[in-house]
C-alpha cells in the first residue's frame, strides 16, 4: 500500500462512510453503535483489497459487503426480534400519536431482513432493480417480487395509519 493509496482510502472513507452508516442502520434496523461496527467491518474488507479495487468502484464493493453482513446479523436476531415486535408496545394501544412515519418504519423493521434490504436499496438509495440485484447477489426477478411484497405490507400499514 503506497502513501497515495492510504490517502485515497482516507478520502474514500471520508466521502462515503456516512452514507454507508445510514444504509446499515436502515438495513439491519440496528442501533448506531451496531451499524458502525458493521460499516467498519465492510470497510476493513475494502481496505484489505484497496490497491486492487480502488479504481474499480470501491463503493459498490463496500455496499455489497455491508448489506450482506447487515442481513446476516439481522437474521441472527430474527426470532427474538419477531417476539418483541409481535408484542404491542407497553401501554400504547393503537396510539394515535404514532405518526405515519413511525408506523412505516415499524413495519419496515418487521420485514424479513432481505426484503427490507431490497426496499432500502430501491427506494432510499434509488438503485435500479439490476443494481439492487447485484448488491444482494440475487436475480432481478427476486428483487421485483421482494420489493412488491414488501411494499404491499407497508402499504397495508399506511392505510391503517391514515385511518387511525
Amino acid at each position: 500500500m503506497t502513501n497515495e493509496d492510504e490517502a485515497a482510502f482516507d478520502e474514500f472513507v471520508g466521502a462515503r462512510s456516512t452514507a454507508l452508516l445510514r444504509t446499515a442502520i436502515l438495513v439491519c434496523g440496528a442501533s448506531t453503535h451496531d451499524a458502525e461496527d458493521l460499516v467498519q467491518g465492510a470497510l476493513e474488507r475494502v481496505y484489505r483489497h484497496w490497491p486492487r479495487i480502488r479504481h474499480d468502484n470501491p463503493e459498490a464493493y463496500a455496499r455489497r459487503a455491508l448489506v450482506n453482513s447487515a442481513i446476516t446479523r439481522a437474521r441472527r436476531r430474527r426470532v427474538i426480534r419477531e417476539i418483541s415486535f409481535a408484542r404491542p408496545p407497553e401501554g400504547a394501544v393503537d396510539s394515535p400519536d404514532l405518526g405515519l412515519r413511525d408506523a412505516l418504519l415499524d413495519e419496515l423493521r418487521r420485514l424479513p431482513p432481505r426484503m427490507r434490504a431490497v426496499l432500502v436499496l430501491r427506494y432510499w438509495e434509488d438503485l435500479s432493480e439490476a443494481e439492487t440485484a447485484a448488491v444482494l447477489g440475487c436475480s432481478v426477478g427476486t428483487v421485483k417480487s421482494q420489493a412488491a411484497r414488501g411494499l404491499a405490507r407497508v402499504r397495508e400499514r399506511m392505510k391503517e395509519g391514515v385511518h387511525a
Partner: protein
Amino acid sequence: MNVEEALKDAMTAQVHGVQAPPSMAQQVRRRRRSHMVRFRTGTAGVAVLTAAVAGAVPFVLHDGSPAPAKVGAAPTAAPTGETTAIPGVVVPNLAGMNGKQAFMKLRALGLTAKIETRPGPAESHDMVLETTPEAGAVVPEKSSVTIVIVSNAPTEPPQTVELPQDLGDLGDGRTFGGMHLGYLPEGLSWGHWSGKNGFGDKSYTTTFVVPGVPDGEYSVQVVVFTGAAAANASKKGDEVAKNTYLASLGEGGEVSKDPSATRTISRFLRPDFAVEVMMSPNYGGKLDKADDELKKIAAGITLVK
C-alpha cells in the same frame, strides 16, 4: 404521496441526523491491524503491527542496545570504547505525531513498527507517548521499534437488548408453559427472559444460550403452543418420530434449503399442545449432530401439571 415516497421520506427522516465519526478510516486500520495480529499469533489485545519494508539503510556506528525512554528525551550518549560499524538506522523522534504518522515514518526508514496502546487522557488520544528504543538510538536495519500510543477510546456501554420477562424467574428455564424439558445439550443455560403470546394465544417462549453469546442472540429457542395457538406450530418437514416434525425453516416460516435457515423440530404432545424447538444456525453449526440433539430435546419433553 404514494407508498414509495412515504417510505423514502420515513427512511430519510430516520437517518437524517446520523453522521459517521471522522475517525472512521483510522478505526478501520486499527481493526485491520488487530485482526492481522489475531490471525497470526492468536493473541487479541495489544495491536502489534509488522511492516516488512526493505530500504536503503545507512551505515552508522552502533553502541549496544538502548533502553526505553520518553520520546523527546535526549538520546543516550554513546561513550563506549568498542564501537563497531554495522548497518543501522537512527530511531527518529516521533514526539507529537499520531500513531499513523509515526508508523509511516518508521516504515519509510525500513523499520518494523510495533504499536501498543496505553490508556491516557482524551486530548492526547492517538499521540505517541514513547518508543522503545528511544529516539536517537541506533538500531540494526529492519529491527522493530515499539511505539506506545495513547488510547482514549470511549468505553461504549455494552449493547443491551431489553427482553421481556413475562414468565418471571424460570430458574433453569426447563419448566414453563405446562411442559418440562428433560434433555438439553450440555453447556446451555437459561437465556434469562421469556415471552408470552408472541406466537399466538396462548404461547410461551424462552431461549437457552451458550455462555458468551451477545445479548439478543440465542442458541436454542423453545416455544410452547397451547390451545388455539397450537395451529401456529409447524408441521412442515419430515415426521421423524410420532407427531414430531423436523425441517429447515426460512425467514417467513417456509421450508428452506438455505444453509442459514433455522433447523426446527416440533412435537405435538396433544392436538392442542405443541412444542417447537429451534436451533440457531450459529450454534447448530458447532455441533456434530445438531439434528440428533434436536430429536433428543423433542423426545425429552413431558407435560407437567
